[in-house]
């Protein structure tokens, strides 16, 4: 009995006396909750070892047949030991250590683990064979949603909650010389040898402490373990990460390590660029397929050794051991030490066979090959090993089947910076594993430190090969091949008969190997059963492709802290101080308006306004071939642009579709400055670099991204010249000295190296000034202060959008789309097809020859108070689409609604009245205008 505070909390204890290698701390008792009832544990217990100690045999119900399941492997991969812990689904109970107060719940059971309604599925099992759902629920089709809901009730796994906090996750970069995956004897020895050779080593171990199988071995093993651990600890150059797993080895030894042992963060993703990698992940004991092999009480030999030696738990009272190797014998010895009776040992090497296990809710009887029936509550199987080869296979090396050892091995010809050692390579005693590990570690260190020829001769790599092992996969009876997917060997045979007879098809059809362990336990038996039923060999059948991650990795760890970049202009503090309404514009967050966009418009039209246009893309172009480049990138001509002048240009993709627009100025000899749209800034920079680096490699052009180097302010309105004049001394701003479409460099408010260009997106007299970013806020404030009596005020994106629409300027991506070629956008005046080649020219030549193309036009609703929402469709007849409204606003300047829209060619004539179908279904009419511009089409204001 376990007593906590004088209260009995569970049935008869299976905890035994202290064991030499136990990992529990008997001085620290903990209480946790199992399906609502309290359970006792010691610090160091896993959830499943604590439950086993308390006599709990059933840890879950399987998802399909709701069969009771218990401990099978006592490792991370234990298929029947997934539980819900608090709000965390699918926790590995045989790996997760108990924490005080944990609320642990079994999966897939209702109303209770012992009495489960879903277990009725077992009775209809023959009709629920693999893939049954493909064959039924076909008719009537309308009932499928109802059937589907029933199927969904049987979905595997725990629960997530919408109220779960995100949690704390982190990432770290590491640059070890040698990264060792696996902290068993070979891995530890490799780390030690590499460190001795001068390498910085990262040693990663999935379990909670180093040692691998030595931890649950005999006294010799334990003493070697102490030596190795001491040697690892003695090396400052070895960093040990326990309770951590290498989840993938990507190209160039880019290694992902999931670290679960960090205080204060749930999990951390360590991204290591290792100079060399040693894969020493050991072996996984594989289950054996026979009738009843999923019953609680059927355990692998290593699970028994773990439970007894690490957790001091007696896994059963009376055992039958089926074995094909020494691990079975070790388990039998451990059981006897734990006070259990070993009723029978069935040795496969001497012809012994296992037929079936019987029992309800747990093993009660085993039938052996000779027909003998043995009563027992524990059946131990030692049927052989699986080498988890994923990390090696991620280098491109294919696994190879070793017939005499009856297991797949990693394959040959590893890259020169990836090494394998330990059980993955072969079987041997501790001395051999350590010797091989040391020799491998030394090689890895020399590869990493590039001292291949130095530091004396290399010792020969000792021979480490897989030992012969009987091919034990399936008994004469059928049983479960994949416990987590409830797939039996019968299902596989049946699938193969149905034609799903390659390993990839049988996997997809039956879902075998698709569960939480991703085939680490299941693949070999799946392949073996398939080989048997198709008459092929295991080697011919092959395995499915192993895919990362090696162990599942949480979304939180992969995401880390949220590092989505946000870009603000230097004037952001000012915008915030006046409570500008922010708008997300790609990576930027910028002011949409400062309270009333309409009055901002009126102020610009009547006085002067400032808008922060820092997100505009800005590129500095230098070199003698810049004019050639501009001629290629833009659809218009650039050869003759005087120094001091700017020009508007439009770029098209190779498909002739409008990609970007902006203004480029000629600042000096071989020196130009380009502006792009805000949204296109990075794409256009990449596009230009792509041309220069892949096509025009001999052109002398240098492009520098300057978007964030300058703060950009548009000073717009009739008073803009007067405002700038108050702060600029070294540039003549007179209308004849600094004309429309010209650029000047000068000093604003004492800030040198500012660019001023006279252009006008808003349609007003305006100057776009680019000032060194560090002085952006200063210049902005200086302009505001200097213009107080001129009526200066800020305006936001919305006011700018209204004014540009009044002026008829299109916005790339709003008034154009992924199909809008230049002539559709009304750029006939700009496109110069007589230029020699430019981006998009062939397509535009074709387009120029067609007459039935859509056109962008100005539109004014017949009813001036109606503003048809953007995306309203222009229709004819019942529902024939003739175009759409791309931009619409109420113009404060004109006192009416105005639009731009794309319409079919035959409607694109001034005076045509079109029908606009609004999203709410109502229809209004609008008139096609002469020009895109609704206001000042002659441009007198901006030229003034």
């Amino acid at each position, binding site marked *: 009995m376990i007593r906590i505070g004088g209260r009995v909390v569970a049935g008869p204890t299976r905890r035994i006396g202290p064991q030499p290698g136990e990992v529990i701390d008997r001085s620290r008792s903990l209480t946790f909750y199992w399906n609502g009832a309290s359970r006792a544990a010691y610090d160091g217990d896993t959830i499943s070892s604590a439950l086993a100690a308390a006599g709990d045999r059933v840890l879950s119900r399987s998802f399909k047949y709701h069969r009771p399941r218990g401990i099978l492997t006592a490792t991370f991969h234990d298929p029947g030991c997934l539980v819900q812990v608090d709000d965390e689904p699918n926790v590995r109970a045989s790996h997760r250590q108990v924490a005080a107060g944990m609320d642990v719940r079994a999966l897939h059971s209702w109303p209770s683990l012992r009495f489960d309604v879903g277990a009725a599925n077992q009775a209809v099992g023959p009709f629920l064979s693999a893939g049954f759902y493909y064959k039924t629920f076909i008719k009537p089709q309308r009932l499928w949603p109802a059937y*589907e809901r029933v199927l969904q009730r049987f979905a595997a796994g725990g629960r997530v909650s919408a109220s779960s906090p995100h949690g704390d996750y982190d990432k770290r970069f590491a640059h070890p010389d040698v990264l060792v995956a696996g902290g068993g004897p070979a891995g530890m020895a490799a780390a030690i040898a590499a460190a001795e050779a001068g390498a910085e080593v990262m040693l990663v171990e999935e379990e909670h402490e180093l040692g691998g199988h030595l931890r649950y071995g005999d006294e010799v093993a334990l003493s070697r373990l102490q030596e190795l651990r001491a040697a690892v600890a003695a090396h400052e150059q070895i960093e040990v990460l326990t309770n951590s797993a290498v989840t993938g080895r990507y190209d160039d030894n880019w290694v992902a390590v999931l670290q679960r042992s960090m205080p204060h963060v749930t999990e951390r993703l360590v991204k290591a660029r290792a100079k060399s990698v040693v894969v020493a992940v050991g072996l996984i004991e594989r289950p054996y397929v026979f009738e009843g092999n999923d019953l609680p009480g059927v355990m692998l030999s290593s699970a028994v050794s773990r439970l007894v030696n690490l957790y001091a738990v007696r896994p059963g009272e009376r055992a039958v051991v089926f074995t094909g190797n020494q691990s079975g014998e070790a388990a039998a010895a451990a059981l006897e030490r734990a006070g259990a009776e070993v009723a029978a040992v069935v040795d496969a090497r001497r012809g012994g066979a296992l037929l079936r296990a019987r029992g309800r809710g747990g093993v009660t009887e085993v039938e052996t090959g000779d027909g003998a029936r043995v009563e027992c509550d524990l059946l131990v199987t030692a049927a052989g090993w699986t080498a988890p080869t994923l990390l090696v296979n991620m280098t491109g090396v294919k696994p190879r089947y070793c017939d005499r050892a009856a297991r797949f091995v990693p394959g040959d010809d590893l890259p020169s910076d990836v090494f394998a050692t330990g059980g993955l390579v072969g079987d041997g005693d501790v001395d051999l594993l350590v010797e091989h590990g040391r020799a491998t570690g030394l090689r890895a260190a020399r590869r990493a430190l590039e001292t291949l020829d130095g530091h004396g001769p290399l010792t020969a790599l000792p021979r480490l090969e897989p030992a012969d092992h009987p091919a034990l996969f399936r008994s004469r009876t059928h049983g479960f091949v994949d416990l987590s997917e409830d797939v039996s060997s019968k299902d596989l045979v049946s699938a193969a008969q149905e034609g799903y007879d390659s390993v990839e098809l049988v996997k997809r059809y039956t879902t075998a190997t698709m569960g939480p362990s991703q085939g680490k336990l299941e693949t070999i038996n799946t392949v073996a059963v398939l080989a048997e039923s198709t008459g092929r060999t295991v080697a011919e059948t092959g395995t499915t492709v192993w895919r990362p991650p090696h162990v599942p990795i949480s979304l939180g760890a*992969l995401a880390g802290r949220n590092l989505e970049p946000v870009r603000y202009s230097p004037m952001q503090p000012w915008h915030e101080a006046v409570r500008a309404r922010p708008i997300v514009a790609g990576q930027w967050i910028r002011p949409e308006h400062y309270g009333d966009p309409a009055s901002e418009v009126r102020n610009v039209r009547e006085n002067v306004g400032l808008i922060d246009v820092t997100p505009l893309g800005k590129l500095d172009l230098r070199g003698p071939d810049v004019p050639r480049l501009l001629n290629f990138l833009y659809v218009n001509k650039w050869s003759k642009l005087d120094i001091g002048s700017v020009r508007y240009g439009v770029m098209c993709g190779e498909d002739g579709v409008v990609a970007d627009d902006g203004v480029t100025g000629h600042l000096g000899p071989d020196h130009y400055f380009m502006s792009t749209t805000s949204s296109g800034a990075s794409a256009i920079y990449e596009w230009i670099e792509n041309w220069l680096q892949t096509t025009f490699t001999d052109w002398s052009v240098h492009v520098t991204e300057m978007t964030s180097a300058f703060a950009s302010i548009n000073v717009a309105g009739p008073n803009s010249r007067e405002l700038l004049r108050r702060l600029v001394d070294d540039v003549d701003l007179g209308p004849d000295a600094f004309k429309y479409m010209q650029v000047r460099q000068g000093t604003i408010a004492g800030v040198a190296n500012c660019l001023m260009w006279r252009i006008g997106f808003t349609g007003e007299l305006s100057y776009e000034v680019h000032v060194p970013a560090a002085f952006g806020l200063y210049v902005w404030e200086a302009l505001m202060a200097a213009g107080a009596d001129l009526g200066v005020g800020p305006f936001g994106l919305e006011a700018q959008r209204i004014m540009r629409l009044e002026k008829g300027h299109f916005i790339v991506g709003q008034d154009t789309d992924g*199909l809008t070629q230049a002539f559709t956008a009304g750029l006939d005046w700009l496109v110069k097809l007589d230029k020699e080649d430019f981006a998009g020219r062939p397509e535009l030549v074709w387009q120029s020859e067609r007459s039935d193309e859509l056109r962008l036009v100005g539109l004014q609703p017949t009813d001036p108070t109606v503003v048809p929402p953007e995306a309203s469709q222009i229709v004819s007849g019942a529902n024939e689409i003739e175009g759409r409204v791309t931009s619409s606003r109420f113009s404060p300047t004109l006192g009416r609604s105005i639009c731009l829209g794309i319409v079919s060619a035959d409607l694109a004539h001034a005076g045509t009245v079109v029908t606009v179908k609004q999203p709410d279904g109502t229809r209004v009419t609008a008139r096609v205008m002469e020009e895109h511009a609704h206001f000042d089409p002659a441009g007198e204001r901006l030229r003034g």
Partner: protein
Amino acid sequence: MGVARAGSDLRPAARRFIHLRGAASDGQRKTTTYSAFSLLRHGLTHEKWQRAWREHEVASAYDAVIVGAGVHGLATAYYLAANHNMRRVAVVDKGYVGGGGSGRNTAILRSNYLTPEGVRFYDRSMTLYSTLAADLNFNVMFAKRGHLTLAHNDGSLRTMRWRAEVNKLQGVESEVIAPEEVKRLVPFMDISSHTRYPILGALYHPPGGIIRHDAVNWGYARAADALGVHIHQGTEVLSIGVVDGKVTGVTTNRGEISSPIVVNCTAGWASLVSSLAGVSLPIITHPLQAAVTEPVRMFLGAVVVSGSLHVYVSQTDRGELVFGASTDPYPSYSMRGSLAFTEELASHVLELMPSIAKMRVLRQWAGLCDLTPDFSPIMGTTPVEGFLVDVGWGTYGFKAGPAAGEAMAELVATGKTPELISSFGLSRFGDGLLVGERGAAAVGH
């Protein structure tokens, strides 16, 4: 030949299939009909199930050889046999049925495209998918969960409205909904305004959903086999014979096949296979990655897509979340996953649904996408007579499988390009008549 006009009869195939039972001849066979009764019978009697599709020796001649046993190739073969009575047809594949993009995609179906051509085409595909289970007598588990495309800025909200309006006028259910409605459909969604990319609304497409992609491939394979089509797995096309500008057949690792028609349905390998016939395609192959989590109880009722965050996610009936993103930014034939992909994916998914941080990624993989310059497919004839292509599907070939197969079958059988696919011909790249679906197809799923 019974030529079924697209749209004139929604389910000629189904009738044909049913009609065939009990009338086996000429390579056709009696097919066990899948039903609850047949399950019961097999369960009781332990009678062996018939092979879903048979294995055959490779014949020396066929009326048509289709390269690629994915959904496009299998659907083409099936409709050839079912709608046009052309049964001496072989589907050859160097791997196994559905081993390429057809078994690697994220199995999302929708028809809310942007161009009228796109909407019409995918709507036909959705119509065929809607009755596919019954037509093929194979439960393809089409779940019309509803499809949400999130808008995170005013620009994408405007595009959503545009798509909704175009869709409505074409009779496709589609509407823009407010964040609160998004939250009602997906309670795990974070619609607060303090996120990095706030959700401003969504395009809601109720008929969109997910399907069991393998089942579609297998269903077509089984139904085509029943009509006499030969499916040859593990059969790699090594060369394509062309004499005097006409295709004469293919040489495979299992022998020569003569055929007046060869159809290339090889997706990511399309340009390589076409080059065997001397046909150059404007296609670049990029990998597209995907990942799946461990299963949890159903909590995500709809398919969620975010173009701004480059992610789409749905929950399968098994309880797994299936994720995808945009194509990798470099051309490659590698089908290995990268770490960066899962990192970005996870951070974007948690932007949308921060409370699922504890769910774990179980597996990642990649498929190959054959991208064209205008993000539209290439279907139809080529300069080599008899060599037809159904390629260039990029990231959305699975959605198109049935309609493309139906149209390609009509082209093979009648020699005339059906109107539904007439704008998708290879010649458009030489005539300046590109069909852009970049906006709606390239990043949306």
